């Protein structure tokens, strides 16, 4: 019970710190500008305006979310070490796993807040485009698919955040942790593509006969492209509730595993 209370307290404190941070508002302003740009960009096209609008809106959410994870999230974690706040916390009855889980959940809450604001803002601009050009709206477009795609986008960001926390837990410098997290994000975005190339193509160049290695890597790195449902939402394609539930389970279980590993590694880290 005490553990849950500690985690909740840390999560709320982290979320409050993030909201007070000027960087968050700068990023939100950028995102609002991107969303407004949606209205202008869409009119540059002659067909599939609905698709362009939905894709642009969700991409703005993804881009801003990544900025939040890589810069704001890493900065909040690094600040605790640089300003020695972590010693104050760990000297209380707060264990390392309380600390990391609380920080992770707090940052995930910031991401949820930002995704909700950006998602609603993008939805407003999309609604305008869909209302202005009804002939160019995909026949099966639904707001439910859009909401599910937005939720998947948030889950994807949460997974990237978990990777960042893991990198932070063992990297000697915040910059190295940032580099590792960005590299993992890039690998994660292409994991599915790489896996398909190796499995479906017998002549995959340097990867020929390395199927087992690639398959093993696909289990180690996050398969982020699975969360990318922009295409599905933009064209109003079928997106089953079962797939959505499985994606949620995958995202939560993978993040939980990474936070657990981060706790183990963080214990070995030299904090002083």
């Amino acid at each position: 019970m005490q553990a849950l209370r500690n985690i909740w307290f840390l999560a709320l404190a982290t979320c409050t710190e993030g909201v007070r941070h000027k960087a968050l508002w700068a990023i939100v302003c950028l995102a609002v500008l991107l969303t407004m740009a949606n209205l202008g960009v869409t009119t540059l096209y002659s067909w599939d305006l609905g698709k362009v609008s939905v894709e642009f809106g969700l991409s703005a959410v993804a881009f801003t979310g990544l900025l939040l994870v890589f810069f704001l999230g890493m900065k909040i974690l690094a600040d605790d070490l640089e300003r020695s706040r972590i010693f104050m916390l760990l000297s209380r009855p707060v264990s390392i796993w309380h600390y990391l889980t609380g920080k992770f959940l707090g940052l995930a809450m910031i991401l949820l807040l930002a995704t909700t604001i950006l998602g609603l803002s993008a939805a407003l601009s999309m609604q305008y485009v869909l209302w202005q050009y009804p002939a160019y709206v995909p026949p099966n477009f639904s707001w439910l698919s859009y909401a599910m795609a937005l939720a998947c986008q948030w889950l994807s960001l949460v997974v990237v955040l978990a990777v960042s926390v893991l990198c932070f837990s063992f990297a000697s410098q915040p910059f190295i942790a940032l580099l590792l997290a960005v590299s993992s994000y890039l690998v994660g975005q292409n994991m599915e593509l790489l896996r398909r190339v190796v499995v479906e193509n017998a002549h995959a160049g340097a990867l020929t006969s390395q199927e087992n290695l690639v398959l093993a890597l696909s289990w180690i790195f996050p398969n982020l492209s699975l969360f990318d449902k922009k295409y599905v939402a933009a064209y109003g394609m079928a997106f089953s509730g079962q797939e959505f539930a499985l994606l949620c389970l995958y995202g939560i279980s993978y993040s939980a595993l990474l936070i657990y590993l981060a706790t183990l590694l963080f214990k070995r880290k030299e904090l002083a």
Partner: protein
Amino acid sequence: MSRRLTAQLFVGLTLLCFYAASYNALLQQLSNAGPTERHSSGLWNLPPVALLAIAGEFKGLMADYLTMEVGAQLGTELVRKPEGGFRVVKKQYDWPGIHRIFVASQALDPSFAQTFIVAQGWLPWEPANMVAEAQEILKIAAKNRPWDWQPARAIGFNAYYFLNQPGEAGKLFIEAAKTPNAPPFLSILGARLAQKGGETEAAIVIMKSMLADKDPDEPGYTDMVDRLHALEGVLVIEQAANSYEKARGHKPSSLAELTASGLLAALPPNPYNLDYCMDTAGIIYFDKPDCRDFAPSKSNQ
């Protein structure tokens, strides 16, 4: 004004002039270079797998950018006249390069309408003459846009207009007509072309299967029934003409000769209230009493 401020202004202005001169020289150099030279390199030259890897989760956005790049490379170009104003010049297009951009855009987003519509608007026509390439792009679009009848319609149009394959075009139009919300004229046009391509029986079967899926109250239903009856009339005449050819060793020269031979008691009724007609090649028409046809001019419309 202090000496220090004057010096700062001088340095600032010098740097500004240097920047303006170098940037202007660069722009001049770029405008003097030919379009091919300017656009020969780009992201679109990468293999599709590499493009997908680079785009990551922003594939759709990159496809949007590439179609905009195509738009920038196509169309007319305004050139400033020395005496003032602008004149329109015909650009030298790098068609293989433009085709590569279409392919790259489609690799990133195979469902994007802008890609296949713009490709169809330019590639198969003069001076690009890239019908096969356009057909490939359209086929991918048709596969990835099962709700849209337009890619299949465009494939059918190219088969008829550029490749001179009316039978194939007819089948494609009929295939396009099966798409939800497809206009009823597509099935009629398809059946007509399929029949023109010597596939009357296939056209009848497809037409019947389409009628079975349609509500009699739907717009265009009666037109399709009329077309079906006309095709059935054509088939009766064709079968009689084949029997005539088998028996006599040559085709009948006219429908009157066919009925006079006794192999066809009378011409079947034509729902369009016109006389059937047989041309010199033996093709039967139900909507051209004098068998006259027009030859389309193959120019960019």
